[in-house]
């Protein structure tokens, strides 16, 4: 599967491991709950680690873990649920997170300009044909009134 990272189309190298599944080799992401429960054993994993968070989760609770995480996935339950915009901003603006922040789930391509501005630098499309549109929409505006993360 392909996605957009830093405005380029690349192949996805990450695997999400569902809570009931065994860990696999390579770069993996797990749920926020699994991370909270199994932080110690996960830290021994041979490969990069990521955490998938949803709107209900609070990034403040993983602020101290961020150095160990190379990926944060923001899993949109619904494009109209804007909480993850603030979570992204907090990750970058408050906790100085330097890894990848990836939008997944039910966000829409027309939101990517804003998402990039709050610190999301990777976009997983719902359908492969959305890839060119997402790259295009990242350039919707050449001016802005507020400070941005990107």
């Amino acid at each position, binding site marked *: 599967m392909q996605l957009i990272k830093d405005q380029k189309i690349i192949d996805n190298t990450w695997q999400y491991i569902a809570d009931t599944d065994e860990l696999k080799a390579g770069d993996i992401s797990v749920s926020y709950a699994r991370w909270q429960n199994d932080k110690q054993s996960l830290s021994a994993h041979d490969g990069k680690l990521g955490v998938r968070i949803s709107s209900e989760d609070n990034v403040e609770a993983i602020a101290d873990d961020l150095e160990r995480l190379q990926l944060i996935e923001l899993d949109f339950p619904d494009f109209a649920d804007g909480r993850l*915009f603030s979570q992204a901003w907090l990750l970058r603006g408050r906790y100085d997170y330097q890894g990848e922040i990836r939008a997944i789930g039910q966000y*829409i391509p027309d939101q990517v300009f804003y998402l990039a*501005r709050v610190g999301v630098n990777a976009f997983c499309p719902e359908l492969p044909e959305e890839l060119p549109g997402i790259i295009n929409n990242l350039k919707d*505006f050449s001016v802005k009134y507020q400070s941005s993360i990107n």
Partner: protein
Amino acid sequence: MYQYTNTDQTLVDERVAQFRRQTEQYLKGELSEDHYRALRLRNGVYIQTHAPLLRVAGPYGLLNSKQVRMLAHIARTYDKNYCHFTTRQNIQFNWPKLEQIPDILAELASVQMHSIQTSGNCMRNTTSDHLAGVCVDEIEDPRPYCEIIRQWTTLHPEFDYLPRKFKIAVSGALHDRAATQFHDVGLHLVKNAEGVVGFKVIVGGGLGRTPIIGQVIKPYLEKKHLLSYLEAVLRIYNLYGRRDNKYKARIKILVKESSLAKFSALVEKEWLLLKDNNELSAERIEAMCAQFIMPAYDGRAAEDQSFAEHQSTNQAFATWVKHNTADHKVSGYRAAFVSLKAPDSPPGDMTDEQLDAVADLADAYSFGEIRATHRQNLILADIKQADLYPLWQKLLELKLATPNIGTATDMICCPGLDFCSLANAGSIGIAKEINEALDDMDYIHDIGDLKINMSGCMNGCAHQSVGHIGILGVDKKGSEWYQLTLGGSSENNAAIGERLGPAVAKDQVTKAVVTILDVYIKQRQEEESFLDMVNRVGITPFKEQVYATH
């Protein structure tokens, strides 16, 4: 008045291009109904009973003559020759074609106008005092801060998908003409003990289904912290506001359910982390204030004798001056209301010809500026007293001089069932009926200061819950009924009207209003306004008479 920089212009132009693309994708079936809906709402486009409705932003109510001529052009070219001024100082077109809306927006952008965030669950047009900069009771002109907030709220990347809509109002005067206690955030310019001007911040007010009076969250905020404090409030609301029920999603519910103390503690904690790196510089504030400097007033305006002469020889003119003009901070000037409440036209509506003519009058007499008020009238704010007579004569010809500002027939009224897909009941028809019943201007003037607000459904676009008399249309088994309330106010003495009793049938509404006014006339004490009397005696005397006649 604020003039766009290249940045402002580029932003609105790029927004038009973005919405054109989105609309084309939708019309080709490439964008789902649900996704397009969220995008079009953020561009002021509703789908109404008959056609799309386009809501254009009137930034804190301020327009210039060129912009008003553009509204006339749009009404003529894309609509049915009229537009509607709303209670939030915006302008609505009721009949545009969806595929033409990107063209309309491009035309608006050519005169520094837009419809960005005039609907949808995002930060809306900031509203203010319609007498800002000219009123006699002003602490400081709020408009520079309104413009700073306008820019900050526009396309804010973090706060465009809020739990629900978010409205900010700013007042700079002692008398609150901007209903700041009924906004998600209300800001008052105030002086601290040292005489330094800052903001009193009010949070959690609102109208609609659950009217709530806002509470003071910050008695005094230094100007330099304006945006960091707003950011803290918005972030807490975005993260913690309810998203499970749209009727419980406004910030007022969050504040109420969590208590002001808890909400305020969350905001304070967030703000302390933000404030030092997000200060508004004194230079930025100064540069913005320079955009709103006083026009070149005539220092000899007060020497004119004709104004007094015309008033003593022409009773109709004197009556208009008394009711439809307001004191001005510069001697020899007055602010003149353009009444959009003529008895035979829907409240707040204006034709293309009237718009063009008012633009000409603004150029001739008022430095080319026009303001929209939150009671759905216009104001020409800077009229030399010698010019009031010729202005009045021209407004008379245009049917824009009904001397009823602040009186019973200066009703706030939503479009109601005639246009709105949300409405349960008609409102324009009732307004017309009340106008017909109260056709005696002397009687209306005798009643004096009275605010009748009428909404066709409980969403409350016409702010019925803060009307001295509020009228709310409800649906009862498929027929239109009306709930009356008394004693509401959106001004300094903010209050939510008390329900008079059971809803009355459509054909009884006007009779009920007339009965209420008769009770007032008979039982008022000397010089006592309607609202004062309701506050003194309560609703019982009114209730007894209204329901006795049914």
